[in-house]
């Protein structure tokens, strides 16, 4: 396995996730390779109730896919089921 450098990513939380985390945003140092790995790592740590299948994810203010690679300095938002309108 290739050597993996740690990445620093910024995470913002909204709605139910923000309340579960108790924070609107944080900077995280992680070895996660993908957005999915990042979420699972954080879910494990903070006990978020919803799984990836109920969420969407955005990177740098664009919708992304769970298997997209995570890059250093990415700004990540996990998007709980929406309820606008």
């Amino acid at each position, binding site marked *: 396995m290739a050597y993996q450098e740690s990445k620093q990513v910024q995470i913002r939380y909204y709605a139910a996730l923000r309340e579960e985390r108790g924070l609107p945003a944080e900077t995280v140092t992680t070895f996660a390779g993908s957005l999915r790995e990042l979420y699972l790592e954080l879910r494990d740590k903070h006990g978020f109730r919803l799984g990836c299948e109920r969420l969407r994810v955005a990177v740098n203010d664009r919708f992304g896919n769970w298997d997209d690679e995570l890059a250093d300095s990415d700004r990540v938002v996990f998007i709980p*089921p929406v309820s606008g309108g």
Partner: protein
Amino acid sequence: MFLLSKEAIEIEPLRRLFADARAGAVATFEGRVRNHNDGRPVLGLDYEAYEALAVEEAETIMKEATDRFGLYKACCVHRVGSLRVGDLAVWVGVSGAHRAEAFAACQYIIDAVKHRLPIWKRERYADGSVEWVNCQSGSRELSREHAH
């Protein structure tokens, strides 16, 4: 045109944007905070938005509707913050030459706004509890109809 508004939505200035000699039809939709949802008495609600992405996705929706239905103008304003029963939560207005396209476009926009924009609603109930709509983990909540 799409706006997120922290203040009460004023409709008259929005309607004035629709003056257009070509337009025979203007369809509008107002989503308001109602005093009940899923059988529970509602006192009010709070909207929270992931602003950068909500605005970008909304502009995409407006363009889709404009192209597909040949609109002259399309406008949507969505509230964020704390709302009470009767307050306007979202306003959609579209103009076109004919009514069929105007109705279809207005409905397309509000449906897409509800399903695609990263905006969340927390309901405040008469019994003092609060709940992020659609965000419960149980199956009951998954099957709910939360649409206006």
